[in-house]
């Protein structure tokens, strides 16, 4: 269990590095899928198999396929790779990286000095317990998630609508096209 946790954690970090430094969107997307699957293995190793299965099905299966479809629709070519290479200069990434590193150091120092003293034994928490929690005291959260998904559906279908191509004018009553003379 420990070996699985540390190995897949290392894979997740390396794949995430690959995502943020890659210049090709499709390659970055594939690295992101590897990273998500590695995090799913971390969940399995920690004893949360329901979350791990959800991570693979919903994240790597559904959300990433959505990304892949959109990248395919955009039809990105070599020019995008060249543009990304031109943008990714040391001047551009050095400042944000230093800021993120300082934030990370602060977080790690806080965790180190915090004296948490908890060890994850890896006892499995099954889907049954999660379901009992979700549909018992947490029922309102489920309703909230449903509302959130409905709002996202409406927003995405409204925002994502591209203007339709110009149609020839129709006659209102008969539905027949007007004759141009």
């Amino acid at each position, binding site marked *: *269990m*420990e070996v699985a946790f540390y190995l897949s954690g290392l894979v997740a*970090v390396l794949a*995430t590095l690959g995502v*943020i430094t890659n210049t090709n969107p499709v390659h970055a997307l594939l690295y992101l899928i590897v990273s998500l699957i590695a995090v799913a293995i971390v969940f399995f190793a*920690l004893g949360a198999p329901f979350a791990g299965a959800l991570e693979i099905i919903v994240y790597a299966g559904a959300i990433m396929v959505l990304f892949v479809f959109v990248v395919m629709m955009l039809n990105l070519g070599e020019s995008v790779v060249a543009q990304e290479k031109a943008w990714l200069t040391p001047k*551009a990434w050095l400042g*944000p990286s230093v800021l993120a590193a300082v934030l990370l150091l602060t977080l790690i120092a806080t965790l180190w000095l915090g004296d948490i003293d908890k060890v994850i034994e890896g006892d499995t928490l099954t889907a049954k317990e999660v379901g009992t929690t979700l549909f018992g005291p947490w029922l309102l959260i489920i309703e909230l998630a449903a509302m959130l998904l409905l709002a996202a559906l409406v927003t995405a279908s409204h925002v994502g609508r*591209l203007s339709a191509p110009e149609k020839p004018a129709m006659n209102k009553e008969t539905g027949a096209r007007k004759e141009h003379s």
Partner: protein
Amino acid sequence: MSGVPMEHGLVLAAILFALGLAGLMFRRNMVFILMSLEIMLNSAGLAFIVGGTAWGQPEGQAMFLLVITLAAAEASVGLALLLQLNHRFKTLDTDAASRMRG
């Protein structure tokens, strides 16, 4: 050695969050920005799972379900915006849409 100390799980979540934050700040292509947001949300979910399993309670996984729902909603709206950006400006550069028209 039996078991993973809770700090190590939280450190992994912190590393992933910092990587996502750095990517969010230094990329200009909107596809990469959305991917960095996914990384950050995923690391927040990982922190919930670590907390939940450390105490042996199922609430961590229940909260992860909400995080994953939020990520799906965010991805769908973000990708719709991405399609609009590409349709109107013929580019994925987020700086192209920095000007308001009133």
